[in-house]
């Protein structure tokens, strides 16, 4: 069966969404388990959540543009099925890490 390669922005930002979802989860693990990271994030903008948001949104935008411009989706042979899988997998992984971390391991 022929695989359809996505147009560059759909593939680029799809991959960016996956990467940013993972980054979002890893950042919360880092800041809530490592006081110096939390202190830096608070100092950077006045509130850790503002810094977190700026990094996540900027990473999504910049990586999406770069991945699209250099057509990395095409080079990585990201067909429609793979983008579909990356999308739900990225979201589910990010949500699961967040929920499990705060439910089981983190006590404020």
């Amino acid at each position, binding site marked *: 069966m022929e695989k359809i390669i996505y147009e560059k922005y*759909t593939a680029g930002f*799809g991959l960016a969404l996956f990467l940013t979802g993972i980054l*979002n989860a890893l950042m*919360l693990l880092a800041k809530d388990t490592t006081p110096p990271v939390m202190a830096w994030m608070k100092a950077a903008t006045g509130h850790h959540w503002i810094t977190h948001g700026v990094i996540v949104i900027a990473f999504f935008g910049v990586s999406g543009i770069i991945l699209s411009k250099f057509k990395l989706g095409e080079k990585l042979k990201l067909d*429609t099925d793979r983008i*579909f899988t990356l*999308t739900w997998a990225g979201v589910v992984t990010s949500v699961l890490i967040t929920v499990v971390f*705060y439910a089981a391991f983190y006590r404020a």
Partner: protein
Amino acid sequence: MFEQMLIMPHVLFGLLGIITAVWALVEALNAGEANRFRLKISGIATSVFMWLSYLFGGYWYVTYYKADKAVIVKGPMSWAHTFGMEVKEHIFFVLLLLSMYLSVVIFNNDVSTDKKTRNLAVLVSVLIVTLGLGMEGLADLVNAGIKLGFMGGK
């Protein structure tokens, strides 16, 4: 009073974002020549409403939530903050990214002719609705934590 009302636009725009994501889901499932414009409008509206919800909610959270947090953590439902609010404030970013990606998918593909692209638009819409409803549930959890905190745990 005015300060307390500042949370209302966050809730309102969040709900509107969920509603327009449902709209986008329906348009994507029935994608064709006739509804191409409506699909684009629903996609861009979802992104705009989620951004407005983020900005209003973020302002309120950073400025006023500290007082509520102090009440919650001293009450019997301290996990409404340590679990509920922490999960909500971090998963919201994924929701915001999804709302932007929905517009990317809709505006750069012909969803009406490509079944796989249509499936992707449907998936993104469903994820937005699911996470959006999750945000509503977590907000209720936080509100319950505040109420019980003020009631002294009774």
